[in-house]
């Protein structure tokens, strides 16, 4: 049984779910594994010695060690599978036995083999601390199962995997600092932006000796200067939207003549025109325009009786 226990420990070490993933680390986990592997090598060497070998090539040693490790791993895996097949979580001795039987190993020979006289006693593997599973960040209380979940069910994962933890910095509540910050931030952005523009484009300078001081972006005449001067900039419109979105409606619909309709709606009390609510039906549109009897909205006539008049002109 002690051999078995020993094997067990080996199994467990190998099947530990985290062991594979921590290869890259140079932490205690790695040391632990190296130690195991060395022990396994010692075991292989002693077995070889027992068989009468005096020396072995390193490659052969490694192969054998690998085979040994594979074998043990397979035993462990199968034992675990058998155990879980019977809805348990910890393998028992019989699981291992079944496994060994399954793998074609005569179990009965095992006690004899274990008690053989020439067997070498291997020193216990150096006691290295079992790898400390890096503790997940403890966030909040680990929840226990509610009553309707049997206790053998797996425990809840660490809270941090499912608990929403809002992160926020302590707000700067001092008004002065806020304003100060906003002001200097804006100024910095503006300065950086204008400097950039000045550096990348044409400039004018106020000083002849130092052109780079106080660079002014060159004034470029535009073809339709009144547009940019009269229309509110997008930024301003955006600001307006934020402050008062209801007023914005008027400003954005620049569609066509039918947009008069929207204004008419507001001033419906002023006039007798009854307008269809909501969306504009194409047929209804013509009606509206007729109702607003304005000569500029009337359709342009086709040149029918124009011949006479043309004669007059030429």
């Amino acid at each position, binding site marked *: 049984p002690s051999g078995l226990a020993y094997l067990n420990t080996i199994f467990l070490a190998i099947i530990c779910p985290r062991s594979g993933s921590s290869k890259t680390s140079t932490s205690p986990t790695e040391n632990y594994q190296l130690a195991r592997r060395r022990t396994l090598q010692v075991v292989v060497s002693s077995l070889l010695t027992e068989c009468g070998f005096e020396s072995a090539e390193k490659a052969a040693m490694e192969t054998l060690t690998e085979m040994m490790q594979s074998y043990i791993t397979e035993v462990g895996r199968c034992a675990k599978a058998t155990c879980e097949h019977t809805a348990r979580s910890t393998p028992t001795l019989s699981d291992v036995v079944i496994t060994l039987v399954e793998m074609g190993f005569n179990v009965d020979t095992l006690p004899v083999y274990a008690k053989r006289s020439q067997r070498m006693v291997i020193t216990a593997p150096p006691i290295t601390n079992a790898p400390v599973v890096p503790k997940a960040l403890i966030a909040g209380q680990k929840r226990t199962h509610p009553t309707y979940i049997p206790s053998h069910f797996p425990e809840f994962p660490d809270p941090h995997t499912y608990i929403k933890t809002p992160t926020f910095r302590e707000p700067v509540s001092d*008004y*002065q600092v806020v*304003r*100060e910050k*906003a*002001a200097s931030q804006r100024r910095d952005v*503006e*300065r950086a932006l*204008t400097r950039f*523009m*000045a550096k990348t484009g044409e400039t*004018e300078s*106020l*000083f002849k*000796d*130092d052109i780079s001081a*106080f*660079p*002014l*972006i*060159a*004034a470029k*005449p535009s*073809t*339709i*200067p*009144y*547009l*940019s*001067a*009269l*229309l*509110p*900039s997008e*930024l*301003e419109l955006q*600001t*307006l939207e*934020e*402050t008062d979105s209801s007023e914005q409606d*008027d*400003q*954005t619909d*620049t569609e066509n003549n039918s*947009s*008069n309709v929207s204004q008419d709606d507001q*001033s419906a009390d*002023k*006039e007798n025109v009854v307008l269809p609510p909501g969306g504009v039906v194409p047929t209804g549109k013509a009606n509206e325009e007729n109702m607003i*009897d*304005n*000569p*500029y*909205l*009337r359709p*342009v*006539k*086709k*040149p029918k009786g124009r011949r006479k008049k043309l004669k007059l*002109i030429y």
Partner: protein
Amino acid sequence: MNRKKDKGFESPRPYKLTHQVVCINNIKSFFRDKSVIGYVELTIFPTVMNLNRIKLEASSARIYRVRVNDLEGLHSFTNDPTLEVCHHESKQRNLNYFSSAYTAAVSAVDPDAGNGELSIKVPSELWKQGDEMKVMKVYIEFSLDQPKGGLHFVVPDVDGSMAERAAHVFSFGNQNSTRFWFPCVDSYSELCTWKLEFTVDASMVAVSCGDLVETVYTHDMRKKTFHYMLPIPTAAPNISLAVGPFEILVDPYMHEVTHFCLPQLLPLLKQTMSYLHEIFEFYEEILTCRYPYSCFKTVFVDEAYVQVSSYASMSIFSTNLLHSGMIIDQTPVTRRCLAQALAQQFFGCFISRMSWSDEWVLKGISGYIYGLYLKKTFGVNEYRHWIKEELDKIVEYELKMGGVLLHPTFSGGKEKDNPTPHLHFSIRHPHTLSWEYYKMFQCKAHLVMRLIENRISMEFMLQVFNKLLSLASTASSQKYQSHMWSQMLVSTSGFLKSISNVSGKDIGPLIKQWVDQSGVVKFFGSFAFNRKRNVLELEIRQDYTSSGTQKYVGPIKVTVQELDGSFNHTLQIEENSLKHDIPCHSKSRRNKKKKIPLMNGEEVDMDLSAMDADSPLLWIRIDPDMSILRKVEFEQADFMWQYQLRFERDVVAQEEAISALEIFPTPASRLALTDILEQDQCFYKVRIQACFCLAKIANSMMSTWTGPPAMKSLFTRMFCCKSCPNIVKTNNFINFQSYFLQKTMPVAMALLRDVQNLCPKEVLNFILDLIKYNDNRKNKFSDNYYRAELIDALTNSLTPAISINNEVRTVDNLNTDVRLILEEITRFLNMEKLLPSYRNTITVSCLRAIRMLQKNGHIPSDPSLFKSYAQYGHFVDVRIAALEAVIDYTRVDRSSSELQWLLDLVQNDPVHYIRHEILSMLAKNPPFTKAADSLLCNEALVDQLWKLMNSGTCHDWRLRCDAVNLYYTLFGLTRPSCLPLPELGLVLNLKEKKAVLNPTIKSEQGPGGPEVTTTMAFTSTLEEEHVVMEPALSGVAMAPQGLKRKAETPLGSSPEPGQVMQEEPSAKASVKSKFPTQEEEDIDMDTVHDSQAFIYHHLNMLERPSTPGKEPSSVEQAMLSMPGTPMPTLSKESTSSKHGDHHHHHHHHEHKKKKKKHKHKHKHKHKHESKDKDRDSHAFSNSPASGRSIRSPSLSD
């Protein structure tokens, strides 16, 4: 005058126009070639037998064909004498001469006198028809090729179709300028109905007067024809046109009103027009009359000539009046413009005027009802403030420039009787007026209307208007045959008659004082309190001798606020009474605790400790209702002004008190002003004014001032955060009053100065902090004006740099404060490129700031930056600001190249408004004046300016008058001092004349093509000067007296060269005796028709014989000094030589008679003819302006 007193209106033309068709079809591409082809057809009724000539105005149009009733008519296209005012290349360069020639030229084509430059000969077959007074149709085909006036094309230089480029065209002009875009009778008094047709690209809209009857595609479907009918008789100057790819907005409140704007601006148009219906309602209500036209159109165009122009049933506005809902400052301005335009629809467009001298009635009424609108919309405070502002403006102008005459009468039609001799231009015609004068004219007109209202009550006033309108609308619906249309013309006499009919009051004295006479009244008031008699002894003196003033006799209201209440007294201002005793009602300080009743019935507690214990007088106001056009300088103690400021509820009184307090820098004044500033019931404009006064007082009190800088703590309290007083609150402009105050206070504060005469560091940092912490994110309104004013504040804080050894300004030796300021300005200016502000207000302020930095020597003075901003393609406000800076640079640095650059711009800039502004800004801030010597003042400049006003500006009356103004500012009335004396050149002329004159006369016999004019004008004009002026002299029979008067008032601009002639012989004689060696001078004396300066020069030489005549510098100086003073020496000289003058005059006369007998004949003939409204096409031709007189057929007879 006589004519006007007649009941009906007599047309100066031998026919009456009833209907006109204007058809402009865009055969060539309208926009690509900027050309127009079309025809007009005028339906006329001859009013005389044998109508053989029809005169029309058609400046600069090319006439292809004329038909009268389908018969080919002959037309002679008289050269428009206004194209080139003085035809010859004489060395004559004095303004007196120019002004008279220009006036004559304008008269020569004045439609109000029946003249015109297009003369059509009626085919003889139709003469008989004329007997039967049958209708005639005059059909004229014409074209305009890239017209400089009349129509303005705006074609942005980008890719895409014309519609995509927002290309548009609109008509414009100063007064009656329709002749520039189609042949017509360009008079406000010739009404007719209209049919207008415009064929334009299918993507365009043509907006014009009257009702749009239909829009029809042309056959290729690529163009549309807009047919307009205007059934209401309308004068040609009230016809207009605008074509462009306009966006159309039907007014949501009034469907017959349509608004047009350029692409992409529709949202702004909606916002801007959202209150137009209120204005409509207001006018219709007060006038109890419907809007006279069946529709109304507003068109917003770019590069507008003026901000607002009104035409029959439509108005053209500058597109820059459009604004979004976020803009505060522009909103009232735009509203005012709309209200003005609409007021002119009633009076100006619908009701037109009989003659130019009746213009004041129309301008007065429209200005007056516009004022009523202001009162209703913006409140009584705003209204009274506006009235005071207007009154101050007109008073300032008249005192500076001389009187403004509303109703000039020209008896006999001779220029001799110049009613405004103090002016350097004639007021006979709207086209000879300086723009500034015309603005003041309008201002005075509406103020006088208000005076009439004061006299007859507003109710009667509105009844009169209603009567005028209802008469006109009855007349407008009549057919022409009923002869009612003249009811639509208003005349001064008709208007006054209506007033007396409606009100039964005689307003004759008032009219005589303010309408028939120019000038304002200047009062000086002071008082003493007689304790024994308990009487206020008030002394009111007048200054009626200085220019622009007149004497006032009549009632004047004086309001005295005593302890017991406010009392009105009406005093009579008489010839010799200066002192007035006004009994007081209250004994001095009877009851300390009692509240003091104010004028409006309010009772208030006052701290009376400041006042004189012996006197019950709190304050006194003279003419509080502004019922006289006056300036009052009243003396009362500082505490009285302070009481007036604090407790008088009238904003005008408060403003008067504030300006009076400027000279009382005491703590009490400071307190009074601060209190007003803090009172939010007080009218915001008063508070704004208080800010600036406080800054001035603080500067005067510098040494004794305690506490923080003026207004700082106040600003902090009102606009900064409670917790951190150095940080301004985030912007919230919902309360407009405090918005305006918040804007103004930093600007006023920046004017503060410390002991070193620098802006206090504390103030500068304060302003920099305001800029730094400015935060508009939560604001409903745009802060562009606020930021602009913060930059203005920085500008105000600048003081001259301390210059050491005149070192060159470099970055390194920049003052640290200035560096901070410059950094802000740079950042603002650069940000503006990325996020432009509304109307680029920030750029404008930055440019001003940079100029100020240059001027104060902080940074090197350099115009190149401004010149780049002044280019075409920047927003107009920016250009104006940049040009202003260039002009300032030109003056300070005396740069001739910049001056040249500016003048080139005047000639070549595409925008009329810019050209006008350059000239008027140059006149306001001239590079030099006649009083000082300058290197800039040279012959080339004189020539250039002369050419500009002589011929370079013929397409734009306003620009020409601007040029005249500038010329006057730079050189004065007389010959510019920098010109060499006109000696040798004239001798040559003399010879040339003799050689050439006769042949040219002979060549005149044919109908005369224009090419003859140009060749002859050069030599012949010298002669005409004699010819024209002599009848004027002999006719009025004032040779000796006139001469004397002239000598005594050398500035008086009776500027006939002929008159000058008479003085010459005397000069010559004397010169001869004293300088017998100067042969050359003697020779040319015979023919010198030159400036008075020349005479002055000679007279001066007589006065100081030791001065050799060849030393130009001293002579120039002498000449300069001459016109300025009424020179006793000169008058003495002239009286002593009077006899000689007289003699020479006769001699001269004879000489002329002998030489040009035929001419004399013609002259006299002309005199007669002009009386009988001559039918001769060349009646005007012997004006000095025209080079054609000699060619006239009558001469060769």
